[in-house]
């Protein structure tokens, strides 16, 4: 047994003319949690697909516990060496937990499937890893957290002792992330090795011992987490000195001029919320995933119908539950999930950016120039306005969503998780756009779990079980805000 769970050396991988990995390596000690960080496009995903045998590298070698990696065709052997919990779910939603755990080996080696035995085996497995899920419930009824646990349990049951977690926290709320970390620590005690990928640097410090940074398809540095300060880490990721440069906006001019007024609005998962935003004001909405903050923001933009209450922009009421009416009234929105609601992936940047605003006629030349303007104003890295958005990295896709939200020059912006899953650099530029819009006299609502997003706000409202429970003025302390989000009073 080698002391390394996985070693990759001199790995190079090209896709057409793009160099996705340029002679990189990684050494993951058995029993550690090793973080892999880097901006979007740094090569993290490609390394994951090489380490899991989904892609054959053009050059380089890979070994697990001292043995060279099996041939790519031998999927079963790969699965015994390494397991990966991808961001996208790899379970079949309409099958039971038990069947998913033993998918493609439901007969447990017996030839005929015994459903009773399968269920019993599944129960044992779930118990072993302390996953509180019924084996006969359908996977589609599970929460994201439970689904991930099922995937981890499945990975471990195949015999793998090396698990790759690809942005596991992206869709979890605070307490669920903590529970995931506890579980990682206890599995680590039992000898499981993790490769942990995340955009949240704080999480790296919480749960990992070693960190590797990739940038522009190259290996930059590998070091113990304890010896790497946050600014150093960000410098390694971006190639630029200094931490996250988010405009705090405390010098923004304030105004008494109310633009957005929401009065006693109730709807799905929230009730009786009133707020008003003036010109140049940015309001943050924080809360756990079940707090109703997303639903509130979606109702303001007309994606959901309110049960009672009114929304008005510049004094005139906006019809509830009607997106075109909201757009017309001057509300722009970055929706919660860019893949699900933000973009039509097969269409071009230009077409996505102008989707809300195009007049009756769409002249390709005008659309292209609008797309080119969006690329320039929001700093989108792309070959041109005709490029399909499916080619772009996450951060650049999110900038296209931002461009679409701002295309009609709205006076109110509703931004839901505006920086979810984007790298540090894109985060800076997206939050810079929010600040710039506020300085132009627009009002914005930022719904987010990320403290960095909330720092750009003039005040932060905390929602808990569908109601505003606290309000923080600028200058809040992290612990205070987090305590309020988790529903703990820290008075």
């Amino acid at each position, binding site marked *: 047994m080698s002391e390394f769970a996985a070693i990759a050396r001199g790995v190079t991988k090209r896709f057409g003319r793009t160099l996705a990995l340029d002679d990189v390596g990684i050494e993951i000690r058995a029993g550690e949690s090793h973080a892999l960080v880097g901006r979007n496009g740094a090569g993290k995903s490609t390394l994951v697909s090489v380490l899991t045998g989904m892609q054959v590298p053009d050059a380089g070698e890979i070994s697990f516990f001292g043995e060279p990696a099996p041939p790519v065709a031998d999927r079963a052997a790969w699965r015994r060496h390494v397991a990966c919990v991808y961001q996208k779910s790899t379970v079949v939603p309409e099958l039971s937990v038990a069947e998913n755990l033993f998918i493609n080996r439901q007969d447990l080696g017996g030839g005929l499937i015994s459903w009773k035995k399968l269920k019993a085996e599944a129960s044992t497995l779930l118990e072993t890893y302390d996953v509180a899920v019924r084996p006969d419930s359908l996977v589609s009824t599970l929460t994201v957290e439970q689904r991930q646990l099922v995937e981890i349990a499945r990975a471990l049951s195949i015999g793998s002792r090396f698990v790759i977690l690809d942005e596991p926290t992206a869709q979890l709320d605070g307490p669920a992330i903590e529970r995931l970390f506890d579980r990682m620590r206890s599995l680590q005690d039992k000898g499981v090795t993790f490769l942990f990928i995340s955009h949240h640097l704080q999480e790296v410090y919480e749960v990992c011992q070693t960190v590797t940074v990739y*940038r522009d398809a190259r290996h930059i540095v590998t070091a113990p987490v304890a010896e790497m300060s946050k600014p150093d880490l960000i410098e390694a990721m971006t190639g630029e000195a200094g931490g996250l440069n988010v405009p705090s906006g405390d010098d923004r001019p304030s105004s008494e001029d109310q633009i957005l007024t929401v009065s006693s609005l109730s709807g799905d998962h929230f009730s009786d919320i009133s707020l008003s935003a003036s010109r140049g004001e940015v309001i943050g909405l924080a809360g756990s995933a079940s707090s109703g903050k997303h639903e509130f923001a979606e109702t303001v933009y007309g*994606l959901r119908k309110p049960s009672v209450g009114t929304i008005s922009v510049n004094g005139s009421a906006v019809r509830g539950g009607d997106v075109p009416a909201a757009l017309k009234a001057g509300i722009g929105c970055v929706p919660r999930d860019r893949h699900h609601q933000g973009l039509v992936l097969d269409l071009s940047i230009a077409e996505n950016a102008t*989707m809300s605003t195009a007049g009756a006629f769409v002249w390709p030349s005008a659309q292209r120039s609008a797309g080119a303007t969006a690329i320039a104003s929001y700093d989108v890295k792309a070959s041109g306005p005709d490029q399909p958005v499916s080619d772009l990295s996450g951060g650049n896709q999110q900038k296209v969503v931002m461009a679409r939200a701002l295309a009609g020059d709205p006076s109110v912006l509703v931004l839901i998780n505006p920086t979810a899953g984007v790298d540090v650099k894109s985060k800076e530029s997206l939050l810079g756009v929010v600040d710039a819009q506020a300085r132009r006299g627009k009002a914005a609502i930022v719904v987010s779990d990320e403290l960095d997003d909330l720092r750009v706000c003039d005040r932060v409202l905390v929602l808990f079980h569908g109601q505003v429970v606290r309000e923080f003025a600028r200058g809040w302390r992290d612990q205070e805000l987090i305590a309020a989000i988790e529903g703990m009073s820290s008075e």
Partner: protein
Amino acid sequence: MTKAMTPPVSAPTPPGKQKFQFARYQDLALVPVIILLLIIGAVLSPIFLTPGNLIAVLTQQSELSLLVLGQAMILIVGKMDLSLESTVGLAPALAVALIIPASAGGLDVGLAAWMALPLCLLIGVAIGGLNGFLILKVGLSGFMVTLGMLTMLRGLQLAITEGKSLIDVPESFLYLGSTTWFGLPAAVWICIVCYAAGIFVLKYLRAGRSLYAVGGNSEAARAAGIRVDRVVWTVLIIGSVLAVVAGILMTGRLGSVAATQGEGMIFQVFAAAVIGGISLQGGKGTLFGALSGVLMLGLVEQILRLQGVSGFYIKASYGAVIILALIVTRFATGQKQE
């Protein structure tokens, strides 16, 4: 270790550029195949390239092409309508039956003869509207609803006509399908105008582009302010109306409404659309592509016919050709057809 001070601009670019270039020509993927078929036809038969023969091909395909136009738009928006082929028969049969006396096989309602065409189009709107209502408002599966309508509408036609052809068709009804304008059958002109309008709308009008947004990602379309249900509903109604127009042309060409008018066409409709690059998953494909799919099938059919392939074999060969065409398209476009 290099210290790159600026973020890499070039890294993600090349694959995108290639993909885009490729997508641009995908539309024209069938043009070489069509030219090849014209050459094969000319080699095999001396009369193949004569205007008479080519006009015959266009005329035969005019009705199919209107159905494909409707179906292509419905597929782009992410739905499908199997009932189009029954609409082709029922709408003219019902409209005519409401006019002619019972002695000629009608319903003895005795509406004025001029009402035949407007009535027929109205029936198309009603069928499309009903499909839309069941799919969008009641929330039923589009496939199953239109499969039910396929059977029900055909059955309704048989019930009204007692399985007989309607021969006593008003003059106004026969005009479009049988007349010639500027040397080309009116049916061909109608197709040209419909396709030109469709291609223009889907490329240059916001309403047309919204079809791709809805079919590509309906949630994103909704968040962008597109009224998704309204778009889908409109497209379903337009599809049915195009099927009605096809039925009117067919009635005019044949001089009567057969009880089986349109039966079995839906398979060719799907074949032509998919060969023409329309994705069954929605959001992809162009009407020009769909049109070239229709032309390709028409040329193949004509070549087989001129070669005197026996009637017993023509159906099998036609089916084989559809599969062959799919294979050719698969490799010409380099994309899997799910």
